[in-house]
């Protein structure tokens, strides 16, 4: 077996006419793939890292002290700590109240010393928020700002964190209060949501990239085969040809991989701006260590090289050209099996989850089913394209139609390959649009009679350290005098059913209208279901008459503060309530919308935004793939299509051929992808929530994404029209 000299390799691979287009194309494809992989890998690692980095704020070690008396003391080796979550508008603020001795040795991450009572440290994002917000709306909750927390102890640049110095009694009164001797970061235990998003992102972005590389390597394949056949004719062994092909791919992939590493570094600032869960990323979070980077480049190069060698071996190029049958085999219906299996796994998981008989966590089978469905779609594609071609072949009536449909029918895998990136992108965006549509079901909290008005907020009153009536009255007066507050109502309740049913709140009948009740029964006092009163939606809570003439025997339970409804008025009222000392420490006053769990929605929305971003990238890559594949398919038939032009076929007819070849499979499979995408979303949602959540109408941006994808496909095809005219020009084709 003869070897491959550098001179021969250079002559055959580099100095050939047209080889450069191919080399540049493949290098760019591999570079884009490696770039996206490194960014995605970096982001996945960063999600865990930043969660671990900020986990000290949740104070997981120590002894809880609620209910203990004031005899509990501190020494220099321990501090009292109380983690809680405050809110300002739709933003959550992580708050850690600390009480430490003056000579405390307990190290608080990022700080040289614990804040004194009445002082606080804030994250840079909170500092900015405080600077742009009147103190009455936010700053008064924390005291005097004495310093800034460093990025090294924060989750993201947008993290809102306050470490506040608080008196010991306040912390000891809270169920969340504890005594601890250290603040440690918890090892990241994994997050199913992150894994899910990463896997979906991986498929959505990397699959189109792999397809792009596969398609680009086909560019000029016919001419390349001719070159190799000529080499075989003049004496090269099959091994030499295989090694030449492998060498070519190895060099290209290595250059592409290194370029990809460079591009990943360049695009890191852009990727860091993507917001997920806790916010955007610190640039350093997205770094991938040198070993992993090396492994990625080496694995890409090795994989591509082996694939190229295998492909050339399989093509069995002899001295007279490729001896292998050039036509594809007719795809079999068995190609539908992975798709059916994936859908089956998800359907069974969803059904079992809804029936409450799922013995395990549904996440793993749902992820598995989803992966199988995604890959199944790629597997099934050629079969579905072939079916479409066969169906259309009996119904078409034009020359362009006959040529296009027969191409689709005879080369279903090649035809599908050209649109497969778009197919994957559209499937993914449909899955996310379907999953995100569930958020819209309870996204709007609106005024409804019998539910707390949206302009009101409420705070629970500490039932252990019940405030003195005078203290309560003072707070009510302060609230009454606060700008933007229109009504303050204190509700009362009982731990027994003697006077009023347990769980029900009593208010004076005169206050009922301001609480949004339409129909008020006669009597001095009325009661209502306090829990149902805070529901996001549902039947109106009805007032019941209470047979009492005064509030003796009852204890104050909640304060309802109605405001003019502006964000400023709500935040001022929240600040007054928080600093009043009426509530349990750490118990944040909230509106009905706050209670409805807007955080869940924002989490889902941030994932959906990420998905649209991923799909945008995937669609762009896919559009490039489509343009390259369309050009490659045309170049491979350059001679024959040129002949057709010579026979009198107009360029417009040739354009129609190319358009039909793309449109036929795309339209059929797009419809399937959209349907499958929403079915997948439904099965995942119902499977994960036991049927508590289901899909709804997708949001507007889904339809925009859909239209943009199809528009890109059109642009991709139209962009090849110039090449069609040039490459089939009669003067450029010899027919002798």
């Amino acid at each position, binding site marked *: 077996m003869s070897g491959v000299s550098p001179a021969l390799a250079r002559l055959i691979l580099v100095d050939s006419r047209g080889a450069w287009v191919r080399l540049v194309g493949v290098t760019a494809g591999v570079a884009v793939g490696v770039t996206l992989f490194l960014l995605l890998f970096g982001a996945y690692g960063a999600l865990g890292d930043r969660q671990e980095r900020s986990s000290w704020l949740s104070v997981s070690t120590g002894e809880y002290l609620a209910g203990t008396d004031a005899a509990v003391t501190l020494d220099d080796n321990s501090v009292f700590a109380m983690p809680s979550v405050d809110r300002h508008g739709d933003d959550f603020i992580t708050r850690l109240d600390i009480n430490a001795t003056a000579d405390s040795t307990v190290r608080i991450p990022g700080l040289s010393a614990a804040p004194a009572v009445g002082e606080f440290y804030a994250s840079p994002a909170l500092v900015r928020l405080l600077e742009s917000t009147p103190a009455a709306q936010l700053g008064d909750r924390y005291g005097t700002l004495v310093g800034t927390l460093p990025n090294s102890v924060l989750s993201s640049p947008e993290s809102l964190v306050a470490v506040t110095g608080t008196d010991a009694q306040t912390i000891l009164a809270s169920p969340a209060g504890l005594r601890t001797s250290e603040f440690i970061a918890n090892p990241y235990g994994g997050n199913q949501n992150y894994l899910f998003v990463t896997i979906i992102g991986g498929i959505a972005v990397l699959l189109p990239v792999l397809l792009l590389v596969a398609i680009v390597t086909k560019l000029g394949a016919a001419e390349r085969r001719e070159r190799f056949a000529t080499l075989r004719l003049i004496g090269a062994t099959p091994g030499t040809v295989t090694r030449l092909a492998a060498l070519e791919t190895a060099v290209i992939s290595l250059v592409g991989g290194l370029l990809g590493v460079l591009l990943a570094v360049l695009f890191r600032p852009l990727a860091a701006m993507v917001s997920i869960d806790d916010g955007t990323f610190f640039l350093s979070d997205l770094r991938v260590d040198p070993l992993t980077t090396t492994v990625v480049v080496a694995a890409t190069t090795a994989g591509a090289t082996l694939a190229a060698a295998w492909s050339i071996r399989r093509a069995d190029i002899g001295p007279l050209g490729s001896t292998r*049958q*050039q*036509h594809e085999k007719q795809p079999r219906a068995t190609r539908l099996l992975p798709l059916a299996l994936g859908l089956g796994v998800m359907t069974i998981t969803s059904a079992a989850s809804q029936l409450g008989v799922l013995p395990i966590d549904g996440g793993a089978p749902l992820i598995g089913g989803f992966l199988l469905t995604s890959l199944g779609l790629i597997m099934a594609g050629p079969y579905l394209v072939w079916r479409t071609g066969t169906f259309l072949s009996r119904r*078409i*009536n*034009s*020359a362009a139609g*006959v*040529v296009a449909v*027969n*191409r689709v*029918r*005879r*080369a279903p895998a090649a035809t599908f390959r050209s649109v497969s990136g778009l197919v994957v992108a559209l499937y993914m965006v449909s899955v996310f649009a379907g999953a995100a549509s569930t958020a819209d079901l309870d996204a709007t909290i609106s005024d409804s009679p019998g539910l707390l008005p949206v302009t009101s907020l409420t705070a629970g009153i500490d039932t252990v350290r019940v405030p003195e009536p005078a203290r309560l009255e003072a707070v009510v007066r302060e609230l009454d005098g606060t700008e933007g507050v229109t009504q303050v109502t204190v509700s009362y309740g009982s731990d027994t059913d003697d006077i009023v049913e347990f769980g029900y709140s009593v208010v004076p009948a005169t206050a009922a209208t301001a609480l949004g009740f339409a129909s008020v029964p006669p009597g001095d006092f009325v009661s209502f279901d306090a829990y149902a009163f805070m529901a996001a939606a549902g039947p109106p809570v009805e007032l019941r008459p209470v047979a009492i003439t005064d509030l003796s025997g009852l204890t104050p339970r909640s304060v309802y503060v109605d405001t003019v409804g502006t964000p400023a008025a709500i935040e001022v009222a929240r600040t007054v309530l928080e600093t009043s000392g009426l509530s349990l420490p750490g118990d944040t006053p909230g509106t009905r919308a706050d209670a409805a769990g807007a955080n869940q929605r924002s989490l889902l929305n941030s994932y959906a935004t990420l998905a649209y971003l991923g799909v945008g990238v995937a669609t762009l890559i896919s559009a490039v793939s489509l343009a390259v594949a369309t050009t490659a398919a045309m170049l491979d*038939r350059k*001679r*024959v299509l040129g*002949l*057709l*032009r*010579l*026979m*009198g*076929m*107009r360029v417009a*007819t040739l354009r129609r051929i190319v358009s039909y070849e793309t449109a036929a499979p795309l339209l059929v499979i797009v419809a399937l992808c959209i349907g499958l995408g929403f079915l997948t979303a439904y099965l995942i949602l119902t499977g994960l929530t036991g049927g508590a959540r289901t899909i709804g109408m997708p949001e507007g941006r889904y339809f925009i994404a859909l239209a943009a994808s199809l528009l890109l496909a059109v642009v991709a095809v139209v962009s090849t029209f110039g090449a069609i005219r040039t490459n089939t020009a*009669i*003067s450029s084709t010899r*027919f*002798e």
Partner: protein
Amino acid sequence: MSQNTLSQHSLSPGTLSTPLIQARDLHKAFGRTEALRGIDLDIHAGEVVAIMGPSGSGKSTLLHALAGVIVPDRGTVTVGDALVSSLNETERSDLRLTEFGFVFQFGQLLPDLSARDNVTIPLLLAGHGRRVALRAADTQLDQLDLGGMADKLPSELSGGQAQRVAIARALVGNPRVLFADEPTGSLDSLAAENVLTTMLELVRHSGTTVVLITHDPRTAAHADREVVVRDGRISGARTLVG
């Protein structure tokens, strides 16, 4: 429907005194290479003319100029009433589609289409319905003894069979002129003789004019007249039959 109804000839037939194809003072250069250097040629209706010459002599360029595939730098080509050399690209495409047929040496069949579908293409391009085109294609394939091969793909045909399918496609629209550039060049002598005989039988029967390029004297021997091109000029001509 007879295949004769598939094409409506718009060109005047040409007579012995008025040739169907007239080339006058044709010049064509590709860069610095002058492929045609002043060619005058008349071809009458129904005539089979073989154009011979060594490689690079300009015979294929001459064929392309006569068929309106390329526009000469100087000189004129007239086919019937049409001054081909002054038509625009679209008009020349229409002329080629309706009046001319083409057969080449190899690589002319669409690989994804069956033999039958390949033959239907010119008719579909000319605006005929699929059913009409399929019927005409079957008739044409039968005349070339290819009835049993209609559903085969080009890769499943022998060289001779593929060439006969190409001839069927060239003739299915009943063209006025058949341009054949080394139509048997890729075949062995037996298959070449077979293909040529069949093709000429069909064209003589329909009265189709043939411009045949070859460098094989045995192929040229089937023509009515032989024209020799050398260095872009006609260096000789002789009548072979009549």
